C-alpha cells in the first residue's frame, strides 16, 4: 500500500502542477485578449493630458507593447522560478500583495468552514433526535432556505443588526474576532446547507439499516445511536462535499470581504479584475488552483481512514493481479452512497 500510495501521490503531484500551469496560462490569455490594460487605462484618463509619446514610453517600460506570446513567455519563465512579478496597478511586488491578504482570507474561510460544519451537524442531529412532529420538518427545510438566501443579504443584515444596532463589532476593525465571526456566519450558511443535506440523507439511510434496528432493539437511546453508530458512516460524503466547497468559500469570500470591508484575497481579486492587473490575477488563480488540488488530495487521503471498505487498490479484474503482482494503477475510490 505504501509503494502504491507514493506512486499515486507522485502522479497526483504532476497532475497538480499541470493544472496550476494551465490555470496560469489560461488566466493570462483570457485577461490579455480583453481590451485595455491598467497602465494605458490610467494614462488615457483625460485628466492626465499625456501625449502619445509619453504614453508609449511608459507602456514600453512595463513591456506591454510586446506581442502577447512574448509577454506570456516572460511571465511564465519568471513564474517557474518563483518570481511573481510586480502589480501593474499598485507597482508593488505581487508576493507582498498576496502575502498581506492570505491570513485574513484564511481566517475567514476556516471560521466559515467551522461555522458551516457546526451548523450542519446541529441541523442533522436535530432531524434525527427532535420529536418528529415539531422540530424535524422545520429543520429539514433549513438547508434549502440557507441555499436560497444570498450571502450578501445575510451579510448586510448581520452588519445592520450586530454592528450598527447592537454595537457588537465595528466595521472599522473587520479583522476583530466578532467581525470575523459574523463574516464567517454569512459565508458559512450556504456552505452548511450543502453539508447538512448530504449528512441528513446519509443519516436517514443509515438509520434504516439493520444494524441500527438491532442497536435500537438492544435499548440504545437515539442520542447514543447517533453518536456511536450513525454519524461516522454518514460523514463519508461530507468529506467530499467539504473539499468541493473550498471553491465556494474562496468565491464567496469575494462578496463577503467586500461587504465587511475585509482586505483578503477576495477584495484583492476584485480590485485586480476591475483594473485588469494581470500579474496579481495570475498569482491568485495559481494559488487557488494549488489550494483546490491540495484540498481534494487531502480528501482522498482521509477517505479510507473513515471507511476501511474504501479500496486503495483496484479490484483484481485483470489477470495480472491474479498472478500476485502489484496492480499497475492504484485507484482511490470514493464510494459516495446516495440512496
Amino acid at each position: 500500500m505504501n509503494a502504491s500510495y507514493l506512486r499515486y501521490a507522485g502522479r497526483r503531484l504532476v497532475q497538480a502542477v499541470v493544472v496550476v500551469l494551465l490555470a496560469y496560462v489560461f488566466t493570462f490569455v483570457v485577461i490579455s485578449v480583453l481590451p485595455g490594460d491598467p497602465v494605458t487605462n490610467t494614462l488615457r484618463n483625460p485628466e492626465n493630458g499625456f501625449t502619445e509619446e509619453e504614453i508609449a514610453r511608459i507602456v514600453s517600460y512595463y513591456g506591454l507593447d510586446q506581442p502577447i506570446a512574448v509577454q506570456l513567455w516572460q511571465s511564465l519563465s519568471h513564474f517557474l522560478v518563483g518570481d511573481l512579478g510586480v502589480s501593474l496597478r499598485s507597482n508593488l511586488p505581487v508576493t507582498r500583495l498576496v502575502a498581506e491578504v492570505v491570513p485574513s482570507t484564511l481566517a475567514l474561510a476556516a471560521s466559515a468552514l467551522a461555522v458551516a460544519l457546526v451548523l450542519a451537524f446541529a441541523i442533522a442531529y436535530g432531524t434525527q433526535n427532535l420529536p418528529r412532529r415539531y422540530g424535524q420538518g422545520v429543520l429539514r427545510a433549513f438547508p434549502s432556505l440557507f441555499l436560497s438566501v444570498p450571502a450578501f443579504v445575510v451579510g448586510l443584515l448581520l452588519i445592520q443588526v450586530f454592528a450598527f444596532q447592537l454595537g457588537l463589532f465595528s466595521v472599522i476593525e473587520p479583522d476583530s474576532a466578532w467581525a470575523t465571526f459574523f463574516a464567517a456566519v454569512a459565508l458559512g450558511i450556504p456552505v452548511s446547507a450543502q453539508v447538512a443535506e448530504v449528512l441528513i440523507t446519509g443519516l436517514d439511510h443509515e438509520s434504516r439499516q439493520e444494524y441500527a434496528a438491532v442497536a435500537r432493539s438492544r435499548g440504545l437511546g437515539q442520542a447514543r445511536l447517533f453518536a456511536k453508530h450513525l454519524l461516522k458512516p454518514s460523514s463519508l460524503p461530507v468529506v467530499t462535499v467539504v473539499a468541493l466547497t473550498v471553491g465556494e468559500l474562496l468565491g464567496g469570500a469575494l462578496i463577503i470581504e467586500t461587504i465587511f470591508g475585509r482586505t483578503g484575497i477576495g477584495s484583492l481579486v476584485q480590485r485586480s479584475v476591475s483594473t485588469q492587473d494581470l500579474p496579481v490575477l495570475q498569482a491568485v488563480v495559481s494559488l487557488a488552483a494549488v489550494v483546490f488540488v491540495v484540498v481534494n488530495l487531502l480528501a482522498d487521503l482521509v477517505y479510507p481512514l473513515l471507511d476501511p471498505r474504501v479500496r486503495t487498490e483496484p479490484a483484481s479484474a485483470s489477470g495480472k493481479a491474479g498472478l500476485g503482482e502489484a496492480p499497475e494503477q492504484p485507484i482511490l475510490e470514493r464510494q459516495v452512497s446516495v440512496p
Partner: protein
Amino acid sequence: MTTTHAGRWAGRTRRAIQAAVGALATVTLAAACAAGGPASSGGGTGEPHDGGDITFLIDSLGDTWIPNNSSISSFQGHIWGHVADKLVYVDEVGEVSPWIAESWEQDDDATEFTLHLKNGVTFSDGSPLDADAVVKNLDTWAFGAPDAGISPIGLFPKTYDHAEAVDDTTVKVHFDAPTLGFVPTLGYHGSILISPKALALPAEEQADLSNDIGSGPFVVESWKEGDSVVLKKRADYDWGPEAVGHTGPAYLDTITYKLVAESSTRTGAVRSGQADVAYNATPQELDSFKDQGFVVAVPRYLGFVNGYRLNTRVAPFDDALVRQAFQHGIDRDEILSTVYTDDWSPAESLIQSNVPEATDHSDSFAYDPELAASLLDDAGWTEGADGVRTKDGKKLELTLYPNPYLATSKAIDELVAQQLGELGFDVDIQAYDVVTFGERVSDNTSLSNYEVTRSFIDVGTVASILTDAENGEDWFGLGESDPRTNKLRDAVAQATDLDERAKSVDELQEHLLDQAYFAPVTQIVQRIYVQNPELHDVTYNGVAYASYYTAWLED
C-alpha cells in the same frame, strides 16, 4: 468578438450585483432610519483643542502610490493633502495664496517666475525643503521618468522649460511661452512636494507609501494596500497656508483612512458612531442625514460643469440649430429636483461658478421647449407620426453615454432622453463601465457627444483642452473651422495679464455657448462628505478635498 462579449457580460453582471446590493442597502437604511438615529447631534461647540482620532471611510484607495502617478487620483488626493504640502494654496473660490512659497513674481510676458520659499521648512525625513528640492519636484512634475515607469503629472504646463535654484530659498522657473496658469497649477492636487530622496527611488519603492516622504502636517504611521492608511500628526509642523487660519501642528492626533467599498456600510458606520466621515454618499441619503443632525458637506471643485460637449463633425450636431435645440430642450430644474438635493445648483456657464473667471451665461441655454421645437422646425426636421422628427428620410437620432466617473450620470441621461424625446429626438442610452467607457467613448471622435466631468485649477488650461492646439483635445471637433474660437483660445492661453485674460474668458464662454458647442446641465459636486457633527472646522480647498489640518474634535 468574444472579448467584446466577455467585457460586456462582466460589466452587466457587475452592474446587476451593484443594483441588487444598492436596492438592499436602501431597505436596510430605511430600517435604520426607522430605528432611530445617533445619540445626539451635540449642542455646544467649545474651543479648538489638541487630541483626538478620526476615521474616514472611503470607497477606494486608488491604485499605485508613486507620487507622480497617483497625486491626481480623487481618492489618494485625500492622503496626499495631509502628508505633503504645496507651493501655493488655492481655496474653494480659486483664490491663490502663499504656502511653501511665501511670495512670487513674474516677468511681463509671463515666461519667467521667481518663487520665494519659506525658511526652515523640512520634510519628515529631516531633509530641507529648499530651492534645490523644489527644482527637483518641478522637473519631476513636468517630465516624470517615463523610462522608469513614472509619468509626468497631468495638466502641468507643457510650456515648462527648466527651473534653477538661485539661492536656498529662491527658485527661478522658465517657460518657452506665456504661462499665466503656472502659479495656480502649483496648488493643484498633482503638485505635491516630495523629498528628493524619495523621488530618486525606483518605481517599485516609490509605490510603497511609507517611502514617500512629504513635509505635510501628518506623516504615514502605517498603511496596508487596498485596506487603510493611518496618519499621525507631525509635532514640529509650522508652515501651513495662512489662508486656512491656523498655524502650528494639527489638532488631531491621527486620521485613519479605511477602505469600505460598500456605500451603505460607510454611511451606516457614521450613523452608528463607528466612524467620523463617510465619503461619497448618494445624494438621496443626504437629507435624512441632515435631519438627524449630521454634517453634510458638498464642496464644489473648480472646473467644468457637468454637461455635454457636442461634436460639430457628427450628425445631428453638425447643424448649429440642432445643437441649440438640444441646449434649450434640457430642463435643468427637473434634473436638479429629481436626481439631486438643494445642495446642487444649475449650471450658469460651461465652467463652475466658483471659478474666478466664470460669468453667468445661463440665458443663452435656458430651458425653452417652444424655442427648441421651432429651431428644429427651422432646421428642417419635421415630426413624424411616431413623434420622432425626420429630415430627408433620416431620423433625428442620438446616443448618450453616461459618464461612469459620475454616479448620477445615468439618471440624468434618462431624464434628458425623456425631455428631448418630447421634442422629437430619438435618444438611446448606452451605459458602460469605466474600462469599456475608456475604450469606446473617451477618445472616440465619431460620437456626437460626450458627457463632461472635469476639474481644473486654472482657467488658462481650458483653452488648450477645447481646441486642437498644443495636443489639445479638440472637444467640439472644430479644428480650424471656427476662427473666432481659436482667436479667443490664443487670447486666453497667451495672456500675460489676469484682467485681460478674464475678459477673453468671458467672451470665450459667450461664444461657445451661443454656438451651442456645449450644453451645460448642473454644477458638479463630485465629493460628498457625511460627517460626525462633533468634528469642527474642516476646510475644503479648490479641488474640494477635505483637510483635517484645521479640524478638531469636541469632547
